[in-house]
């Protein structure tokens, strides 16, 4: 048999179908023997014409008649040419790698599935999933599928290469020529088609213009295709009109920008706002701007704003001082080198800065000093107080015709007198004692303070006011006389009537005030063993004095925990006094004090210090008395509007409280005399948490040098002009401005400030506060 002869291989043998495997073996062996043309009379055998490796060496022609099974020409080799003379079943040219397959009729599903090379020509329609999964390998020519009719659904799914041409000629498909939704997942290749096509996967492919080159390729190829299927008769029809053709191309990667839909910004303006109205959903309900803002904002969009609260709060020291002495301001003056002014400033508030602030006061200012919150030593205000000993006396205000009588020359009375003198009033001080100065002068032991300091300060006051010693005991008539001859009268008679014990032998005991008074005058005596009933501060003073007078065994007893504190207590303890409690005295005998608890305390001297009450025998009936003291309102006014009362006659208290009361009364009288409204509001105290003590060194112990003390003052609530806020502000939003009227302020530029609060966090004095911005409504 010659190589040019055509071998006929039959699909049936003895009336029985030859198995696909056997038919395949027969074709392969014929080719191996050199046969190059085979005619297969198929009877449903699959895969005919595929895998013909021999075709690589020399072309092979396979003609199929009868009933071809599936996968004609699958895995076809280049050099293979298959002519199927009739209808084709599924998957013609599956995985075709080079064969030319011509179907002279229709083909069913899956034509050219996964084809990578070669050509498939179909003379009719094809079923669904044609040209799917096709590839294109740069080493070979791209695969081609030519269909004279139309294609079924899902055409060209996942097509990755090659060209499909669907001519739409005499197709049995009535609808789309490429079926329903072609090109899903298509990533490569192109599809020429002619006829109606309503949809394709626009996410994967797009229609492009057919270029001249495309058209030439199509016309040339068309001729070959039509020749192959024997339909040269329709060449003219199919190539007559370029406009009848369309070309689909897989999208290039750069064209795959996602779904093409209206951008939301456009949707908002053209759809949303158009339907709802300007401003959208709530444009009719609010005018508040709603456009986006950054997370970090300035101006009115800040959530928090810093506020420079200079002197908006009292420093804790000043707030803690009953007299309200501007302690911090004085340290500031010292820091600024104005020592004299600092000393003089105190005199505006108290006539006894050296005696009281310097020695006698428990110094509530220091107890409230912010520094103590971190165990830093409070700034020693006694240094400051003592510095006022020789301070310049203030110049009084121009005189005003207003006569004021002050009965009592203790710290309370002299405080009123001093203040009213400064305010220009005529003041007359009455006292039945020959020595003005009240308890400081006559009762408090001199171990507690230098006598000459007090004398100097006392003279400073007495130089300014008229002092009159009362000849007789004060009685209601004499009081009425004084009251009637003055515009205002201030009672400052103190409390010097001793409370007495009602126990057997009480008469044997000394009254503490009397004892102290006599001790100061050098007229008191104390035995070696002294028992003091009542362990308060007066009891302590008595103990100290008793010790000075020679007592060596001093016991203070009390029925409850002793109320004594401070310097008085310390002095008594230094004198070796014992404190015993609870002990209730039941009798005072020759040898000592008996107690309910059974303890007997031997004593040569017994002193009673259980408190003192005012002697109010002189008080007329129209001035009310409450619990043994004169009844007053907040401004120390009695039930007689022209009469005020201060000091221990109103309530027992500290010297500074008596001085404070005097200040208040003087302000009240001054305001009334001038017909002015007087307010007594004090600023609230600064929250000490706002003060930053970390700036101060814990090692520094300022001692008693005023300048060193001043340097350690934290200047709570009062700007010390350090400029740290300007420096720390990360936005350079803070500036220091001189004020036209003198002074300065720190100000914030809202357009720079972001409300971080660094100024408040860093400010050593607690001036800056970060506040919530006003709500936007």
């Amino acid at each position: 048999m010659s190589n040019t002869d055509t071998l006929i291989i039959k699909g049936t043998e003895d009336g029985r179908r030859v198995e696909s495997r056997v038919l395949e073996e027969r074709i392969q062996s014929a080719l191996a023997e050199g046969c190059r043309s085979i005619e297969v009379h198929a009877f449903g055998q699959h895969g005919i014409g595929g895998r013909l490796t021999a075709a690589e060496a020399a072309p092979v022609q396979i003609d199929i008649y009868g009933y071809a099974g599936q996968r004609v020409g699958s895995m076809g080799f280049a050099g293979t040419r298959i002519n199927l003379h009739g209808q084709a079943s599924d998957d013609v040219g599956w995985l075709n790698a080079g064969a030319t397959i011509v179907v002279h009729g229709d083909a069913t599903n899956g034509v050219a599935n996964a084809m990578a090379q070669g050509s498939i020509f179909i003379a009719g329609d094809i079923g669904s999933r044609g040209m799917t999964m096709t590839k294109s390998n740069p080493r070979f020519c791209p695969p081609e599928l030519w269909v004279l009719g139309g294609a079924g659904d899902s055409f060209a799914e996942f097509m990755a290469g090659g060209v499909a041409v669907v001519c739409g000629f005499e197709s049995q498909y009535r609808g789309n020529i490429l079926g329903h939704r072609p090109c899903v997942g298509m990533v490569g290749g192109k599809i020429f088609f002619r006829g109606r096509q309503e949809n394709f996967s626009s996410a994967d492919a797009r229609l492009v213009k057919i270029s001249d080159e495309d058209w030439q390729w199509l016309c040339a190829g068309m001729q070959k295709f039509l020749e192959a299927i024997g339909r040269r008769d329709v060449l003219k029809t199919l190539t007559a009109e370029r406009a009848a053709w369309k070309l689909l191309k897989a999208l290039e990667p750069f064209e795959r920008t996602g779904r093409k839909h209206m951008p939301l910004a456009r949707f908002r303006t053209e759809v949303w706002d158009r339907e709802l109205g300007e401003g959208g959903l709530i444009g009719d309900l609010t005018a508040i701007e709603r456009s986006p803002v950054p997370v970090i904002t300035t101006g009115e969009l800040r959530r928090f704003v810093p506020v420079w609260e200079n002197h908006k709060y009292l420093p804790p020291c000043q707030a803690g001082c009953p007299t309200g002495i501007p302690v911090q301001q004085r340290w500031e003056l010292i820091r600024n080198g104005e020592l004299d002014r600092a000393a003089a400033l105190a005199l505006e508030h108290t006539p006894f800065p050296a005696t009281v602030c310097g020695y006698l006061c428990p110094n509530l200012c220091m107890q409230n000093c912010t520094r103590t919150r971190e165990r830093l030593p409070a700034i020693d205000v006694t240094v400051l107080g003592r510095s006022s000993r020789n301070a310049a006396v203030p110049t009084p205000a121009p005189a005003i015709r207003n006569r004021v009588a002050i009965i009592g020359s203790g710290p309370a009375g002299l405080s009123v007198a001093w203040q009213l003198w400064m305010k220009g009033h005529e003041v007359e001080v009455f006292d039945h004692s020959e020595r003005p100065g009240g308890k400081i002068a006559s009762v408090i032991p001199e171990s507690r303070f230098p006598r000459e300091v007090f004398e100097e300060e006392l003279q400073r006051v007495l130089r300014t006011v008229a002092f009159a010693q009362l000849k007789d005991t004060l009685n209601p008539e004499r009081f009425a006389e004084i009251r009637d001859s003055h515009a205002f009268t201030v009672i400052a008679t103190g409390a010097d009537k001793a409370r007495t014990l009602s126990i057997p032998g009480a008469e044997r005991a000394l009254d503490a005030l009397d004892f102290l008074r006599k001790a100061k005058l050098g007229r008191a005596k104390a035995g070696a063993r002294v028992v003091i009933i009542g362990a308060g501060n007066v009891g302590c003073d008595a103990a100290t004095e008793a010790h000075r007078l020679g007592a060596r065994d001093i016991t203070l007893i009390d029925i409850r925990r002793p109320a004594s504190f401070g310097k008085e207590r310390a002095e008594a303890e230094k004198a070796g006094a014992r404190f015993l409690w609870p002990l209730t005295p039941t009798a005072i005998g020759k040898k000592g004090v008996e107690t309910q608890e059974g303890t007997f305390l031997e004593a040569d001297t017994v002193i009673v210090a259980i408190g003192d009450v005012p002697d109010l025998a002189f008080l007329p009936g129209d001035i009310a008395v409450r619990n043994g003291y004169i009844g007053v309102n907040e401004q120390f006014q009695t039930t007689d509007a022209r009469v005020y009362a201060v000091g221990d006659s109103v309530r027992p208290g500290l010297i500074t409280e008596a001085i404070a009361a005097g200040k208040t009364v003087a302000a009240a009288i001054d305001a009334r005399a001038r017909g002015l409204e007087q307010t007594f509001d004090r600023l609230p105290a600064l929250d000490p948490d706002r003060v930053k003590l970390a700036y101060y060194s814990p090692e520094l112990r300022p001692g008693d040098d005023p300048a060193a003390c001043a340097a350690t003052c934290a200047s709570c609530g009062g700007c010390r002009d350090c400029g740290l806020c300007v420096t720390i502000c990360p936005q350079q939003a803070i500036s220091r401005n001189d004020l036209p009227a003198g002074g300065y302020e720190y100000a914030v530029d809202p357009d720079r400030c972001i409300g971080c609060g660094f100024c408040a966090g860093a400010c050593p004095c607690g001036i800056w506060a970060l506040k919530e911005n006003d709500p936007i409504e």
Partner: protein
Amino acid sequence: MEPVGHMHPSTLSPTDHLWQVVWDRGRCTLCGRCTAVCPVRALELRVCRSRALNLSPGLVEKPSNTYGAYHAVHCSTEIERACVGCGMCGLVCPNDAIAPVRSAEIDRLRFHNNQGGEPRRRGGRRNDTTGILDRIKFVRISMLTDPALDAGRHEFEIRTLLGRVLPPEQAVAAATEQGWIPPVREIYPLIIGGMSFGALSPTMWEGLQMGVAYLNEELGMPVRICTGEGGCPPRLLRSRFLKYVILQIASGYFGWDEIIHALPHMKEDPCAVEIKYGQGAKPGDGGLLMWYKVNKLIAAIRGVPTGVSLPSPPTHQTKYSIEESVAKMIQSISMAWGFRVPVYPKISATTTSLAVLNNLARNPYAAGLAIDGEDGGTGAAYNVSMNHMGHPIASNVRDAYLNLVKIGKQNEIPIFAGGGAGKNGNLAANAAALIMLGASGVQTGKYIMQAAAGCVGTESDRCNICNIGLCPKGITSQDARLYRRIDPEQVAQRLVDVYLSFDSELKKILAPLGRSTSLPIGMADALGIDDYQAAQRLQIRHVV
């Protein structure tokens, strides 16, 4: 820091707190952004001391100290300023110098955040990362057995029905006799659950509504959103977008006068009306909008004074029983729109759900039942309600569905499930599981806030300050300074992203079941779980 010597029972050290801020001095530029952005003012600039000992070799010279001070960013240990872990400080920090870190051990703060006798209230979620939904797997994967579909290639029409579906014989009868046929909406099965105008900021609310409109009009996805209980802006009521909206009526009746006034001007009927009886996050408790958030705008829409807390009663007053409540309210609301709008109740998941469901089954006007499980979120609630009250949604919805099957009405009354879908990010899987357990659709809220607006809340008690109006993302704030951080357009865009990706994921689950047009409602044979007891309880496969 406490002043020396002052300590009280609620004095907490930094490590007693749940969130601690770690600050790196070396990286910090002291730019002030972190303190400016901190929603609760936990952060502040602080002055610190420094000290160095000066020691010469061999101690030849007398040792000395050098004292100084420096500035630090400090996190307050005060209870009312405790760090909430939102992480905004880290977001704005240019140098990655600061970030909150969650305490590894149980915090001490929880023992003290009841100062003044007021128990902790917060927004957010249950603070529990576990949940049965995440454990459910889809074990039926058809490959060669059923015609499996390709999620990427095939066309899907994912829709569900909201409304009462008549059984065929009744439907035919109603059609032939021209009787009343209950309204039924064909909608997307993932519904944005009720989050009120007020609970959410105006920008957030508008963003969600805009996104829903876009999904409907540009992408053809019939997504629906529920208003929550806070009224509805009048413009929306009078717009065509109303058809995408489910109006909610709850026991506070906020803003319903505006809805009534708008009735004659409505271009479209709303999608449906939801009557809220309960909320999964805080069952047994009513809605709560805390005073911080009731500003002029919110007050106007709700018809209340400004600056007052707005608690809704836990029950509808004047409605004293299921019979009365359901019958009266469903009928009245249906009447308002001429029986053209589906009306259904929403309850919190509870062991008594079936009683409600059976009642609804007998009521021809009931359009469905929404059940909200314990993992739902809320804008404000008592901590105890959120953490310890409520019922998981999975078994509740399963019981409800099987109950319908028992009475033969599983195709007639849709059940909508909510509360925890997507709480760990697995929205599509959770939603599909709920659907296969028997839900016709799923409601979601938290997931949307997180995905569409960047809510920073987590199940680990992060942030959770929705209640006090300080939402650092502006999602739940009524302060323009905060809510202007949100651009409604971007929220809308993210919502679109969420729905498109959800749709793709749902298809990936449905495709192997061969479903492309009908939801596998109640198709529990496709579900499996590795827990035997859970499998028994849910009547799904036990797979190990």
